């Protein structure tokens, strides 16, 4: 019956209890959403980086990463590969040739990291082929060898063009702009703009300020197109030190959530790169390895490093320390947010429970007089506090669970900050995520806060003298 009395007691002052319950609900909702967004964001960054950039393990010549010089290829490649293939926990690997080159088109030039890959092996390790926004992935080789290039690198090489065409003007997607605007846009037909800036200037010249403000961004996206099949000439160095000029045809454009990576990296077939630069058939600069899990990657990198001390074998945590930091300290940050929230919550509960005790001095005196022992009085007050917080916690967890589950499917679009976020490798669409253990942990901590917050009010109750308490009005 103590449980029943405690539950009924919290509804004596409905408004006061509801205020606490709503405060707990909002607090839980806020904490869970904040943790969910942060976890989702970090997980996405780590996942993107592992899938597109670093993989779980990389093997290099011990001196390669110092200056990334072409001559430092992995010695004894075939023996090493035989061992990797027989290592449990390794899912796939992709050997890469990696050289720095100057890329040129007819309109611009830019520095690039050329990654020479075997497209099929690379598919097993990275997800570049899934991030294609235009064109294909080495599936239809023409006379010139293919190149899959990052969207930002393509933009730097002025392969992202803008052109108003009759065909596009007649499509229903922009019919809502109105005849007058479409007519104005018609005046731009026939001119190809090689930079966004130039196209925007042209749009401003024909559209009213209001129209440009309303539709400018949409029109820039709508009339943009990548110049697939354009030629890109690459100037690189041969193993002998002489310069070599290679021409590729743009086969596909990929886009990850990391603009810096997209602006610097292009993929070509390794055999083309090797034959043109004078590297041998077994000469590779990097072996990217995908393991069964990112944690296994760390363990295996250590094991392989001990077994093959002649190579530099690094896990993703060593290759990208910022990812390791986010990944390892995420729970510390979670605890900090939850800690601050629980501290604020505890003050609210102590205040409410103190009021509840001081209002019921006479009743508590009566209960002690008729034979309710101190343990039961303590448990009753503690249960009231726990019920109060738990009710708010359950409502908060249900609400935040539903909202989190919705946004984990559709994502939270931070499109207006996309450029800035993608510049530092973060996606502009966040898919919040909270792990089950954190979810349960938050509930348990809220209950613990309820218990701890009841200690002071309960102590007040226990110190009451029944005879004196019964005399109070």
């Amino acid at each position, binding site marked *: 019956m103590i449980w029943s009395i405690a539950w009924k007691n919290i509804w004596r002052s409905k408004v006061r209890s509801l205020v606490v319950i709503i405060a707990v609900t909002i607090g839980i909702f806020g904490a869970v959403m904040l943790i969910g967004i942060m976890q989702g964001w970090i997980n996405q960054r780590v996942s993107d980086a592992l899938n597109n950039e670093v993989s779980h393990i990389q093997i290099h010549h011990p001196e390669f990463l110092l200056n990334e010089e072409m001559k430092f290829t992995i010695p004894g490649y075939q023996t090493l590969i035989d061992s990797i293939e027989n290592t449990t926990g390794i899912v796939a690997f992709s050997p890469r040739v990696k050289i720095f080159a100057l890329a040129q088109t007819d309109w611009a030039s830019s520095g690039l990291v050329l990654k020479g890959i075997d497209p099929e092996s690379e598919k097993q390790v990275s997800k570049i082929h899934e991030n294609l926004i235009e064109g294909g992935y080495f599936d239809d080789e023409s006379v010139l060898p293919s190149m899959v290039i990052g969207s930002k690198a393509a933009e730097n090489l002025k392969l992202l063009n803008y052109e108003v065409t009759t065909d596009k003007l007649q499509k229903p997607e922009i019919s809502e702009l109105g005849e007058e605007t479409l007519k104005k846009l018609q005046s731009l037909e026939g001119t190809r703009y090689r930079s966004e800036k130039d196209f925007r200037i042209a749009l401003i010249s024909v559209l009213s300020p209001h129209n440009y403000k309303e539709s400018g961004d949409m029109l820039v996206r709508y009339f943009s197109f990548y110049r697939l099949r354009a030629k890109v000439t690459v100037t690189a160095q041969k193993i002998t030190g002489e310069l070599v000029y290679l021409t590729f045809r743009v086969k596909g454009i990929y886009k990850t959530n990391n603009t810096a990576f997209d602006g610097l990296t292009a993929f070509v077939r390794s055999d083309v790169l090797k034959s043109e630069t004078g590297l041998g058939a077994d000469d590779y600069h990097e072996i990217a390895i995908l393991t069964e899990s990112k944690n296994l990657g760390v363990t295996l990198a250590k094991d392989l490093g001990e077994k093959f001390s002649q190579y530099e074998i690094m896990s993703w945590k060593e290759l990208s320390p910022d990812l390791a930091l986010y990944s390892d300290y995420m729970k510390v940050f979670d605890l900090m947010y939850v800690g601050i929230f629980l501290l604020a919550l505890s003050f609210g509960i102590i205040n409410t429970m103190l009021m509840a005790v001081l209002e019921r001095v006479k009743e508590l005196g009566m209960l002690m007089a*008729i034979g309710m022992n101190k343990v039961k009085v303590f448990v009753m007050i503690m249960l009231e506090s726990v019920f109060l917080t738990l009710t708010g916690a359950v409502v908060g967890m249900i609400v935040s669970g539903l909202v989190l589950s919705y946004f984990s499917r559709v994502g939270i679009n931070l499109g207006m900050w996309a450029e800035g976020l993608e510049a530092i490798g973060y996606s502009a669409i966040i898919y919040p995520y909270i792990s089950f253990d954190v979810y349960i942990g938050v509930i348990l901590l809220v209950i613990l806060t309820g218990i701890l917050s009841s200690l002071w009010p309960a102590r007040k109750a226990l110190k009451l003298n029944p005879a004196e308490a019964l005399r109070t009005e």
Partner: protein
Amino acid sequence: MSVIDIKNVVKIYNDSEVKVHAVNGISLTIDEGEFTAIVGPSGSGKTTLLNMLGGLDHPTAGEIYVGGTNIGTLKGSKLIDFRLHNIGFVFQSYNLIPVLTAKENVEFIMQMQKVPSKIREARTRELLTQVGLGDRLDSRPAKLSGGQQQRVAVARALASKPKYILADEPTANLDSKSTENLLDIMEKLNREEKITFIFSTHDARVMKKARRVITVEDGKVIRDERKTN
């Protein structure tokens, strides 16, 4: 057979360095089945005496024996447990638990005594019927009149099967009809079931019903009258 033996009990309060002798050497014996009123003016020491009989306060000197146990020596949980099993309380302002129904208020004390639920339920029903509230089992205190609430309090005091019931001014907040009704019920329980009642009161109607009236003044018993009816 005596239920309570009070031997030369003294209670001194040290109020602002002035010693107040609230009870000053009282010796009494209360027998089983008594229907006794302790009367006296305000500040005479009757409430202090009642608190000591209820184990809510300890005597400064002297002993109070209840069924052979000196309750002045009991402390903490032993004293609380003693109260639970030996003493029933009826308070001036009813003091029911407002969130519980009449039935639950009566049952609560038996639950603390760990009485099995079937016995508990049957006894609750029986007691509330005895005090004339058999049809108000599920009413909360706020839905009952003052007289009805005090009758629930009497049923609650009886529920633990105590050796005696202490009633501190039980009629002070009741109108005359409710007072008469309550006193009739208590007298009936006293006569038929030999339940010992000790009242502290100013109420002439209670004094009239009581078969023994102990008058206290300045912390001393100045008169102890027993009626023969």
